[in-house]
C-alpha cells in the first residue's frame, strides 16, 4: 500500500498509510493477453463479396435450369459455393497481391464452415421440434403411457409418461453411482500424483471414447448374465454410469487443475492437512466447475440409447421399480417408435426426441448459469456475498477479544490455552 502511493503520487513524499488489508480486485485475471480483434471491411471487400456471390448464384442457376441435367437443392448449393469461392478469389486477385488473396479466400472458407456446423446444429434441433409438433400439443402425450395406443391410434391416445419416468429414474440411479465415484477418482488423480495415478489417468482418457454400446454389453455380460438380474432400470443405470464415469472423472481432473496453487499452499501453510485442504479449499473453490462437469456428464448420459437398448428392455407401461421388469427411457422410446412407419408413430417418435432435447437443453442452461466460470471467478452477487461474510468475520473477531485488539500490535497475541504450541515445534 505504502509503496504504491509513493510511486503513483508525488515521488518525493512518502505517505504512510495505516496498515490495512486491501483485497485486490480479482475481476479480471492479470497477465492474460487476449488476441487483438483483426476485422473490418472496406467497400471493395463488399463489392467483391456481393459480386462473387451474384456471379456464382446466377451461373449455377443457368447450369441447373438451362444447360445441365442437374437437379437437387443441395447440389445447387454445393456447386454455387465452389463457384463463389473461385469467383471471389479471381475478383480479389485483380486488386490485391497473392497473400492477401489467400487470406480472403481462407476467411470465406472458415466462415462458411462455421456457418455450416452451427447452421446444421440449429437445424437438427429445429427439425426435431417441427416434426414432433403434431404430437407435442396434446396433453395426454405427457400424462399417459403407450399401453393403449396402437400404431393406428390417433395422437390423442397414448403418451410418453413411462419413458419420462424411466429416464429420470435411470438418470438418478446412474448419477448416484457415477458422481461420488467420479469425483473421488478426479480428486485421486489430482491429489495423489504418482505412477499409479498417471496410469489410471491414461486408462480413463482412453475410456472416455469407449463406445457406449460396449458399456451396455459389459453390464449385460456381468449383471444380467452372471448375477441374473432382469433387464431392468438398475442394469440400464449401471450401464449409463459406466459411460458417464470417465467423462466426469476427466472433467473433474481438469477443473481441479484450475484451482490456484496459491490457495492450496496457503491452506498447507496454515497447518491444514491434505484432507482438510481438499474439503475446505479445493472442492469449494472448484464447486461451480464440478457442478458443470456433473451436469454435462448427465446431459451425455441422458441421451445414450445403445447401452439402454441392450440392458433395459422395452415396455409400453409405467414401471417405477428399477429392480424388476423392463423400463423405458426417452431415447429408446424415440428409437422404437420410429421403427414403426405409421405416420402417427413417427410423429410420436419425434415428439419424444424433442422432449429429450428439452431435457438436455435444460441441463445445459443450468450448467451455463451455475458454471462456465473459472474457480475464483465470481459473479457480482457472489462477490457482494463474500464481502459481507468477511465483514461479519471481522466483527466476530473484533468482538471476541477486545483486550487483544487494544494491545500493542507488536507483542504476540497470547491465547489462554494453547497446548498445541508445544506439539508443533
Amino acid at each position, binding site marked *: 500500500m505504502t509503496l504504491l502511493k509513493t510511486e503513483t503520487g508525488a515521488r518525493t513524499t512518502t505517505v504512510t498509510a495505516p496498515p490495512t488489508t486491501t483485497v485486490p480486485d480479482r475481476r479480471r485475471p492479470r497477465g492474460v493477453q487476449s488476441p487483438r480483434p483483426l476485422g473490418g471491411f472496406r467497400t471493395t471487400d463488399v463489392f467483391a463479396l456481393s459480386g462473387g456471390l451474384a456471379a456464382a448464384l446466377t451461373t449455377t442457376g443457368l447450369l441447373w435450369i438451362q444447360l445441365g441435367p442437374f437437379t437437387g437443392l443441395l447440389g445447387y448449393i454445393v456447386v454455387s459455393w465452389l463457384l463463389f469461392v473461385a469467383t471471389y478469389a479471381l475478383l480479389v486477385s485483380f486488386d490485391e497481391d497473392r497473400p492477401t488473396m489467400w487470406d480472403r479466400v*481462407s476467411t470465406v472458407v472458415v466462415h462458411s464452415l*462455421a456457418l455450416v456446423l452451427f447452421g446444421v446444429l440449429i437445424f437438427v434441433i429445429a427439425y426435431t421440434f417441427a416434426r414432433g409438433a403434431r404430437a407435442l400439443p396434446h396433453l395426454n402425450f405427457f400424462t399417459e403411457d403407450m399401453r393403449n395406443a396402437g400404431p393406428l391410434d390417433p395422437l390423442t391416445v397414448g403418451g410418453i409418461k413411462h419413458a419420462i419416468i424411466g429416464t429420470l429414474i435411470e438418470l438418478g440411479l446412474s448419477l448416484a453411482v457415477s458422481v461420488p465415484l467420479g469425483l473421488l477418482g478426479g480428486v485421486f488423480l489430482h491429489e495423489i500424483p504418482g505412477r499409479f495415478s498417471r496410469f489410471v489417468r491414461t486408462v480413463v482418457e482412453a475410456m472416455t471414447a469407449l463406445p457406449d454400446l460396449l458399456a451396455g454389453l459389459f453390464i449385460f455380460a456381468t449383471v444380467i448374465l452372471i448375477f441374473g438380474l432382469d433387464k431392468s432400470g438398475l442394469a440400464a443405470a449401471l450401464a449409463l454410469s459406466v459411460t458417464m464415469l470417465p467423462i466426469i472423472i476427466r472433467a473433474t481432473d481438469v477443473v481441479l487443475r484450475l484451482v490456484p496453487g496459491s490457495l492450496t499452499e496457503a491452506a498447507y501453510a496454515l497447518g491444514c492437512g491434505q484432507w482438510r485442504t481438499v474439503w475446505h479449499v479445493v472442492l469449494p473453490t472448484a464447486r461451480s466447475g464440478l457442478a458443470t462437469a456433473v451436469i454435462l456428464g448427465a446431459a451425455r448420459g441422458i441421451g445414450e440409447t445403445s447401452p439402454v437398448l441392450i440392458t433395459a428392455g422395452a415396455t409400453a407401461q409405467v414401471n417405477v421399480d428399477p429392480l424388476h421388469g423392463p423400463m423405458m427411457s426417452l431415447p429408446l422410446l424415440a428409437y422404437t417408435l420410429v421403427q414403426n412407419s405409421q405416420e402417427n408413430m413417427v410423429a410420436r417418435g419425434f415428439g419424444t426426441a424433442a422432449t429429450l432435447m428439452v431435457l438436455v437443453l435444460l441441463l445445459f442452461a443450468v450448467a451455463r448459469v451455475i458454471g462456465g466460470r473459472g474457480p475464483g471467478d465470481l459473479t457480482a452477487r457472489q462477490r457482494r456475498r463474500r464481502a459481507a461474510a468477511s465483514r461479519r468475520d471481522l466483527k466476530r473477531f473484533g468482538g471476541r477479544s477486545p483486550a487483544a485488539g487494544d494491545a500493542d500490535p507488536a507483542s504476540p497475541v497470547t491465547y489462554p490455552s494453547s497446548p498445541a504450541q508445544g506439539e508443533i515445534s
Partner: protein
Amino acid sequence: MTGAAVARPEGQATPERRRLKTNLGLADRVFRGVARGGGAIVLVIMTLVGAFLAYRALLALRESGLSFVTTEEWNPDSGGFGIAAVIVGTVLIAIVAIVVATVLAVGVALYISEFAPLWLRRWLVGMVDLMAAVPSVVYGLWGAFFLQWKVLSLSRWISDWFGWIPIFKVSGVTRHDPLATPTVYTSSTFIAGLVVALMVAPIACSVMREAFSQAPPGEREGAYALGATRFGMIGTVVLPFGKGAIIGGTMLGLGRALGETIAVVMIISPVFVIQPRILENGTSSVSSLIATHYGESSPFALSALFAAGLALFAMTLIVNFIAASIVARSRSGAVSEV
C-alpha cells in the same frame, strides 16, 4: 543460492541432507486410502469391461479360430461367421465421418479462436459443447428422415461424374440414367458417415480450439509485425502450434466414429459382404450388428457378438491411446502460477 554453494570451502564434507518426514494424521491417511481405493475401483471397472468381453468371446473364438477375421457372413448358429464385412463397413463409415468432421472441426475451431468477435466466442464454445451432447438418436432421426433424401441428388451427381473412381461407383445404374431408382443411393456408407461426422466434429473441434487459443500471443504479433496476413499468421503460428491437437482431436473423433451405434443403425441397411462402394445402398458396422442381433441370439451366437464387440473394443482402444498420447505430448501445460 549458487553463490553460497560456490563459496563453501573445499574439502569440507557437505552436511548430510535432512530427511523430511511427514507424519500424516489419521484423517489424511484415511483420505489417501479412500482416494487410492476410488482410483483402483475406476481402474478395475475399466479393465473388467475388456476382460469380460474377452471371457464371453472365448467360446465363439475357440470355435471359429482365425476364420473369424476373414469370414464375411454372419450366421453363428448355422455355418460361418466373421467380422471381415462389418469391420470394413465400420472403418469406411468412420473414414467418411472423420474426413468430413476434420474439415469442419478445423474450420470451426479456427473460426472460434481467430475470426469470431470476442463477445460471440463464449456462446460459440457453449454451442459446440451442446452439439456434443445432442443425443445420438436425435441425429439419427434427422439423418434418416431428412438428410438421407436430400443427399440423394448429391450422391447421384458424385457417382455420375466420379464413378470411374472405384469407391464412388454405384453398381446397377448407368450414367445419367433417368429411370434409375433413387433408392440405390439410400442407406449408404456415405450418408451414415455424414451423420456420424456431425456427431464427432464437436469433439474434435473442442480439442483443437483449446490448443489454437493457447498459441502464444507474442508469436502471433511477431508474425503480424513481419507483415503476415491473418491467413499467413494462422499458417505459420497457430496451425504448427496446434498440430498435435489436430491429429489428436481427429483420432479422438475417429474413436467415437468407430463406436457410434444408434444413428448408424437408423440409417444403414445391413449387408454382410465387403461393400467398398460408399455411395451404394447397404453397408454394415460392428456396433449396429450387435445392436440388432443381441436379442434373438442363442448362447453361442451371443458369444460371437461378444467377440465382435471385443474386436471393436480393441480397435477403439488402440486409436484412443494413440490420440491421448499425441494430445498429451502436444500440450505444453506447465504454466507458472502467480
